[in-house]
């Protein structure tokens, strides 16, 4: 594949868009022998578009998959039995942590200019998704926590701080991201832990942080502290320090917080009493903390839901195996019409979540100033889709799900592990609040601007390289601009009359027009934390438009090699049908003409050992 970084805007849909004669994507040199498996028949989604040979990341994912091996092998030290045993004792899977250290997972959190391998946000999600497929606790407890801490420093830290943290992570160390205080939840602007100058002028910590992953065992901490007693958005700062540099007598670790899900993740608390910190600890300028958090967490709000798709991947595989192995009413449970529908709908939910997060992750590169809106939209919507999907699969399994035998204990763990995605890092409501603050402005300014630019087309082409991620361009406010919604309008207007998705495009444009009218009139007094449910509902409608634009434009920008049998739009139609269901537009089950191709593809991928996401990579999960 060529590495042209075209910044062209979305081309005319329905006319074929990929480079003529482009080779089939996604065949890394060191492909797994399972790659020799004949490819299942394509079903219409942009098959293989998520295998960007140019970016070189499928090789990383495939290498990680090979290290993890066959999850079903009872002798595998990182297999299913070992994961469940670790969960039973509420511990991290030590063999899994060793494996990830050998693999060099932390390098994927460190930007390339600091010696790491982090370049594209969607590639980081790919790698982490492979971890979540095996054990979500490993994903969150080994990896994601360090990345959450690190983005603060990559965004606002000095060169020295960035190099120091990069060195820590590249040598296999951990960083804890200490924001949370139980009294303030996601409202971190009220954080009460203080870092104020003592008699000698050095900052001294007083207060507590609670329910923070790896707080006890992380060598390095990014701590969010109040550095000014005044109210306002310039009263907090991040501090970066090594725990070894603190006087032990001023630090008290609190008891670990036991949890229902993600039981292995070590959630700790810490209490400081007049604890001095090294002089160069403040990240960025004093008082810049809220700004840094709002900017840097845009990346993690997209990445975490994207990683958690790996959890649903394994839940779906586990449920499908269970339903196939179960005989009911003289046949396989999986073959009952209701079962087929639930399985197909869950598959479509997974593809919906993947398409939306992938586009949002890539938009962080192509429209960094608007990444905040897309991150809040993803984090407010995708975890709910994932949780509902796992819940529905548990209904499919019925009493089997309840038994501690066979593969089902793994499913039970996944059902527990998926829960914190709803509130961890940023809750649905806090993300909707963030969207609400920008909604009337976007309605007045962005959606009515007939000449505004859509996103560059490569945003929707998962196999294409992206411009470098510029942390400095992440902005606290999208300033009312919404190029992803604009992409929906522009692409729909230029869709060929006989394009099978043109009707969907027009319907979503009509919804955007209704939303523009409703949101433009929203009183500014109704967008604060005490906003009524109606106002929050508007943000859900906005999120729906964005997700629809992501799905439609991914279809319209599918690579030329996806033509032929992949020109069948059934999968995109199914994904949009599910989107409508999640937004309460309707309560219809997926019609058989859309469900059956998905159900057939699901079985083919299970038999071929392929993931259920857009990438379709080999997996031993």
């Amino acid at each position, binding site marked *: 594949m060529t590495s042209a970084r075209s910044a062209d805007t979305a081309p005319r849909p329905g006319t074929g868009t990929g480079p003529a004669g482009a080779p089939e994507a996604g065949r890394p040199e060191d492909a797994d022998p399972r790659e020799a498996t004949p490819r299942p028949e394509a079903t219409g989604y942009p098959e293989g578009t998520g295998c960007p040979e140019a970016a070189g990341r499928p090789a990383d994912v495939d290498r990680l998959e090979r290290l993890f091996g066959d999850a079903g092998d009872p002798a595998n030290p990182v297999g299913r039995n070992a994961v469940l045993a670790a969960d039973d004792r509420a511990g991290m899977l030590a063999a899994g942590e060793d494996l990830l250290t050998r693999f060099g997972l932390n390098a994927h959190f460190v930007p390339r200019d600091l010696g790491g391998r982090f370049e594209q946000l969607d590639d980081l999600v790919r790698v982490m998704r492979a971890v979540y497929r095996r054990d979500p606790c490993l994903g969150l407890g080994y990896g994601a926590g360090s990345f959450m801490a690190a983005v603060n420093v990559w965004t606002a830290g000095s060169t020295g701080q960035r190099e120091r943290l990069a060195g820590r992570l590249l040598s296999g160390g951990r960083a804890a991201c200490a924001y949370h205080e139980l009294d303030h939840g996601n409202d971190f*602007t009220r954080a009460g832990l203080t870092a104020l100058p003592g008699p000698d002028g050095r900052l001294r910590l007083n207060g507590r942080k609670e329910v923070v992953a790896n707080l006890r065992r992380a060598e390095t901490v990014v701590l969010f502290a109040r550095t000014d007693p*005044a*109210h*306002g*958005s*310039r009263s907090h700062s991040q501090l970066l320090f090594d725990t070894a540099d603190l006087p032990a007598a001023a630090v008290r670790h609190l008891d670990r917080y036991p949890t229902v899900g993600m039981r292995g993740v070590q959630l700790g608390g810490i209490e400081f009493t007049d604890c001095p910190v090294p002089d160069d600890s403040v990240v960025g300028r004093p008082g810049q903390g*809220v*700004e840094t958090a*709002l900017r840097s967490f845009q990346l993690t709000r997209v990445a975490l839901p994207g990683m958690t798709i790996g959890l649903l991947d394994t839940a779906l595989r586990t449920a499908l195996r269970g339903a196939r192995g179960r005989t009911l009413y003289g046949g396989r449970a999986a073959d009952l019409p209701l079962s087929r529908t639930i399985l197909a709908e869950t598959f479509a939910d997974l593809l919906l979540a993947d398409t939306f997060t992938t586009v949002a992750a890539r938009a962080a590169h192509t429209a960094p100033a608007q990444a905040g809106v897309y991150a809040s939209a993803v984090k407010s919507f995708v975890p709910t889709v994932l949780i509902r999907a796992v819940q529905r699969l548990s209904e499919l399994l019925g009493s089997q799900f309840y038994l501690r035998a066979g593969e089902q204990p793994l499913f039970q763990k996944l059902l527990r592990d998926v829960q914190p995605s709803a509130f961890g890092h940023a809750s649905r409501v806090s993300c909707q*609040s*963030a969207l609400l*603050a*920008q909604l*009337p*402005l976007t309605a*007045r*300014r962005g959606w009515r*601007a007939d*000449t*505004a630019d859509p996103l560059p087309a490569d945003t929707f082409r998962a196999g294409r390289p992206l411009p470098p991620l510029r942390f400095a361009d992440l*902005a*606290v*406010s999208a*300033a*009312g601009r919404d190029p992803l919604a604009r992409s929906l309008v522009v692409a729909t207007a230029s869709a060929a009359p006989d394009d099978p998705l043109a009707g969907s495009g027009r319907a979503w444009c009509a919804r955007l027009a209704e939303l523009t009218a409703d949101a433009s009139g929203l*009183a*500014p*007094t109704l*967008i*604060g934390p005490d906003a009524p449910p109606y106002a929050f509902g508007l943000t859900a409608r906005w999120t729906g438009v964005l997700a629809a634009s992501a799905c439609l434009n991914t279809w319209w920008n599918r690579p030329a090699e996806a033509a032929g049998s992949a020109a069948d739009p059934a999968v995109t139609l199914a994904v949009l049908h599910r989107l409508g269901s999640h937004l309460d537009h309707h309560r219809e089950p997926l019609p058989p003409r859309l469900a059956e191709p998905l159900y057939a593809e699901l079985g083919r991928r299970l038999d071929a050992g392929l993931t259920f996401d857009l990438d379709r990579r080999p997996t031993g999960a």
Partner: protein
Amino acid sequence: MTELTTQTAQPTAAELVDWLRDRVAAQTGRPAEEIDADVPLNDYGLDSVYVFGLCAEIEDQYGIEVEPTVMWDNTSLAPLAEALLTLIAAR
């Protein structure tokens, strides 16, 4: 930054404060005479992400780019007007 701009002449500090006071009143649902130019906007519930809309109104009115952080750095209307006058003069 100028899609909806109706660019106005350089205002005086007093004119700018008066205009801002009206906008803050509209944003917060309070009478304009209650808005004190030396009281932090935070006290009226305008802080953090809730200044974004006011930023856009200033941008559209005066044809300038206003980072929301300008409003975090200048927490009441009097210093905010000073900061904005510099931006307006430089447009």
